Structure formats: structure tokens, C-alpha cells
């Protein structure tokens, strides 16, 4: 739950004439109640989202896998291991896949290098590459989304 989402919720509440909204998701609970006076700012209390601690912490090596952005469509291919993401078999070689490519189940999408071992990540289904979510040669953590794939391409 980030600021943008809360803002959108407020917008929605205003449009719909909703006076109170409470959302709880994996430890985050947001309650919004619109003021009775017209034009009054709604009260937002973020009870568990501890932005303060996030401020004191440095930027993570990668976005925490537990809170990926909700995909608009398609399914995510997530990293099954921790390591370094490579789009090609060698620095000079061609990328395994590009956006728009149609892939087959079992086709190699990328490599995640861990402990000097090249782990080939295969597609779990037929589909079409909608998005590549990690830049080449960047570290990835467990569960981090790597690709967005449309499993039923038009």
C-alpha cells in the first residue's frame, strides 16, 4: 500500500460518497474516513505501515519480493533463487527473449547466476513476453518478478 494507492482510494471515496474505508493486507491496515464538513481533508491512519523505519534504512538491493506491484495482466515469472540475472548466455550473445516474443513452455527465458553456477530459468507455459522486469546483470532475490508473460496470447 503506497501513497499513490491511498490517494486513489481517497479519490474513489470522494466520487462514490464513501465516508469510511478500512483495508488490511498482509499486516498493513489502512482506514480512511472522510470528514463530515464539505471540503475537509480525509483522515488517513496507516497503522502498521512503518514508513519511518523505511526512511532510516538504506535502499534495498532489490524491491522486497513480498510486495510486488499488482500486475495489470499476464502472470509473473519469479526468481526461484537468489543470484544475478542475465538475459543472455554470454556477454556478447543475443538475449534469450525480448518483449513481444512468443515463448513455448520449457523455453529458456534467462539465467540466474548463483555461486558461479548458471541456472537457466524456463518458461512454465506457452505465452508472450509482455515485460522484462529486471535489467541485465542486476541482483535478484528469491521470489522477485523477472518477466510478465501473457499465457494466452491473442
Amino acid at each position: 500500500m503506497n501513497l499513490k494507492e491511498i490517494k486513489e482510494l481517497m479519490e474513489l471515496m470522494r466520487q462514490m460518497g464513501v465516508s469510511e474505508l478500512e483495508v488490511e493486507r498482509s499486516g498493513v491496515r489502512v482506514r480512511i474516513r472522510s470528514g463530515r464538513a464539505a471540503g475537509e481533508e480525509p483522515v488517513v491512519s496507516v497503522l502498521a505501515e512503518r514508513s519511518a523505519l523505511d526512511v532510516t534504512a538504506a535502499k534495498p538491493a532489490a524491491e522486497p519480493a513480498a510486495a510486488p506491484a499488482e500486475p495489470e495482466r499476464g502472470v509473473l515469472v519469479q526468481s526461484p533463487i537468489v543470484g544475478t540475472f542475465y538475459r543472455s548466455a554470454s556477454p556478447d550473445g543475443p538475449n534469450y527473449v525480448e518483449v513481444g516474443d512468443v515463448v513455448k513452455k520449457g523455453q529458456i527465458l534467462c539465467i540466474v547466476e548463483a555461486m558461479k553456477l548458471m541456472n537457466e530459468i524456463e518458461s512454465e507455459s506457452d505465452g508472450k513476453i509482455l515485460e522484462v522486469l529486471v535489467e541485465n546483470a542486476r541482483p535478484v532475490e528469491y521470489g522477485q518478478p523477472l518477466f510478465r508473460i501473457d499465457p494466452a496470447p491473442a
Partner: protein
Amino acid sequence: MAMFNKILVANRGEIALRVIRACKELGIRTVAIYSEIDARALHVRVADERVCVGPADNALSYRNIPNILSAAEITGADAIHPGYGFLAENPHFAEVCESVGLRFIGPRAEHIAMMGDKAKAREVMRKKSIPVVAGSEGVVSSEQEAVRIAATLGYPVMIKAAAGGGGRGLRVVNREDELTKSFQSAQAEAKAAFGDDSVYVEKYYIEPRHIEIQVMGDDKGRVVTFGERDCSIQRRHQKLLEESPSPVIEEPVRRELSRVATEAARAVGYVNAGTVEFLLDKQSNFYFLEMNTRIQVEHPVTEVVTGIDLVKEQILIASGRPLSYRQHDIRLRGCAIECRINAECPETFTPSPGTVTDYVAPGGPGIRVDSALYPGCVVPPHYDSLVSKIIAFGDTREEAIARMQRALEECWIEGIKTNIPLHRRILKDPAFLKGRYSTNFLEKFIAGE
């Protein structure tokens, strides 16, 4: 080796936070690892960097060696602190860390392996003329053998089911003429309970105390001890409350324990933090039980009475520095008690995971809190139920106890059940207040005896 730039903390909960605090105070950057369910845990939030290493199941995350080493690699960490539990006493992990150029902040793999084999450890100590808890070396198949062993050990002895637990198949024998009957009934009960009638014979120590000595060795061969901890308040071998110094140990015994623990550590060339555990009988005789090759849950009571930060000392030693202290620098001041706050029902001891809806830590004079709780945090059902440690210290044992009682009253945790009510009861018990308790105390106390 120069001081580390970045340490990966291969643990979770309060001990991960404890290590991160030590790193921050030393100016070393930190990497937290976490499982998916711990994404919002406090140790993840306060670390400089964080890497998800697997799902909630700890075999796939906190004990997932390839992912943890990869996490160290992608973040550029140069050392790993294992905390306690998980991989802390896994010699293979210690070895692999060193083989890939990561310093393992702990003892050498060979010492972890040696002390992990309890029979081997006792044999090493016996050879160094260190008194060891006595017993048969393995299964005793006949009454004749049992009689012979018991005569060597001296009565009373215990006949224990090899497959046993929970007191079943256990017989205490006070005299030789009771042995035959007890041996047979122990075998029968073991057979009925576990489908296996193997039994062994051990010396029975009457109301022993669990006393342990904190040791620290450096790679120059120096060893220092940091006084004792009395960890006799246990339930099913799980320590619940610890104190330092022990209320029953006189100075000559303390010196002797310290000497023996130093000898034990020096005998093997032990490096980094370790704990030598002893049983202490009513006559103040002590017997080597085992050696733990990690920082212990209860290390804060030692830190408080010695004024020394053991975790920072672990890191300094791992970086190749000599011990910052000599034995004569170690002086105990006052008394400290630790209560382990577990997320569990105080009567039935069943775990009580959940979301902590409200949390206010105790504070004020003489109170230290090592806790990974915050309002809104989640206590997952997948891990140890320890959620917080409250350490009270005072000029006297009475003051430390009064402060602990006051702190437990102040401590407010809502959303999960904790064993605070049990601690409050223990701290009012007349025998506890007098310091008269043994490892049998808690089972009897819970049973209401």
C-alpha cells in the same frame, strides 16, 4: 584481516536485530536475509540492505545455504554472522563460507563438529582430566552390565530409555538391590512406549543446577571467561529464565569453573564465543555437559554484569583482532536476570502466533529489552516462539528481581499470548527468591507442587 565492510546476518528475530545493532555501533554495513513471511520484520527494516532468500519454511530460506551465500555475493558482504539456531552450529556452513571467501563469525568448523558430537566432546574433556557427567557409553543390554556400571558411577543412578523422552522409561535407582527390578520395568516401559527396549545408565545428580561459563578465544590462543550464568529454570531442556551471577556459586567455585572452562577452550584452540555447560550438584561438584559453539540466547545477562559487548567482540575477533580484554579486566558488577518472552499460552505452552496489535516495551532504570516486536508486527507460526527478552539488572539480586517484576507488569503485548504471567509467578516463588532451585524446579512449579 581488515575490519569488515559489510556483514550478512543469517538469522531473524531479536538475535538478527542484536547483531545488526552491534554492526551499526562498529560502523559496519548490514545485510538482512528474510523469508517471504518476514518481509515486514524489524530486522529487515533496520538493516542497510535486505534479500529475500526463500519461502516461510526455514529449510528453504533461513537454512538455504546456496541462497544465503548468493545473497552475500550479490550484496558484496565479506562476513556472515549466523546468530543462534538455524545454521549457527552447522560445520558444513562454516566451512563453505570460508571456502568462498566469506568470514564465518564463529568458531572453526572443526570445533563446531567436535562439540556437536556430544560423546566426542565428553571424551576430549575427559582426556583433559575435566570432570564429565558420568554414564554408560551407549546401550546397556543386561542387568549384570548395569550393576557393574552403577557400581562404578556410584548410586543413585538413572536408567533411561535410549529412544525416550518425557520421563517414560526412566527409573531412578538408589541402591543396588533395587536395580534388577527397575532395570526390567524401565525396559518394559520403554518397549511399550517407544517399541524399543534399549536403555542406558547415567549417574543421577540430585537436584542439579545448570551452570554455564561464557568463554571467548582469539586466534592468538588467548582465552578469557566472563563469569557464569545460572540457567536452571528450564522446561523440557528449554531455558526460560537465566541469571548471572548464580545465587549459589561462591567465589572459589567460580574461579575453579572459570579455570576449567578456560582449559577446555584452550585444549582445542577454540576461537570466538562459546559456552561451556556444567551440571552442578548440591556439594558444588561440577561436571562437563557440553560446549555450545555460538552466541547464546542468554548472553545479555553476561553483557550486563561485565559491561562487555560480546557480539561486538565476536565480530572483532573474527576480523583477526586479539581479545580486547584480559582475564583481570573482567569484573562482575551487580546482578542480571533475563526472562525469555515466548509467544505461547502461559498454561498450556501451545504457541500463539499472530499479529501484535499493540506493544509497549518496559523501560526505566536497570531494564534492557532485546525484542523484534513493534505495533503491527506479525509473529509467524513457522519459527521459534521467542519474541522478546527482558533483562533486568540491579545492584543486588533483590533489586534485579524487583525490577523484573516491575518491567513484566509494564510490558504490554496485545494480539498474541505470551508467557509473561508464568514469569511473574516464578518471580514471586519463595524458593526462587531465595535462589534455591534446580533444573527440576519448573516442572514441579508448573505441576503446582
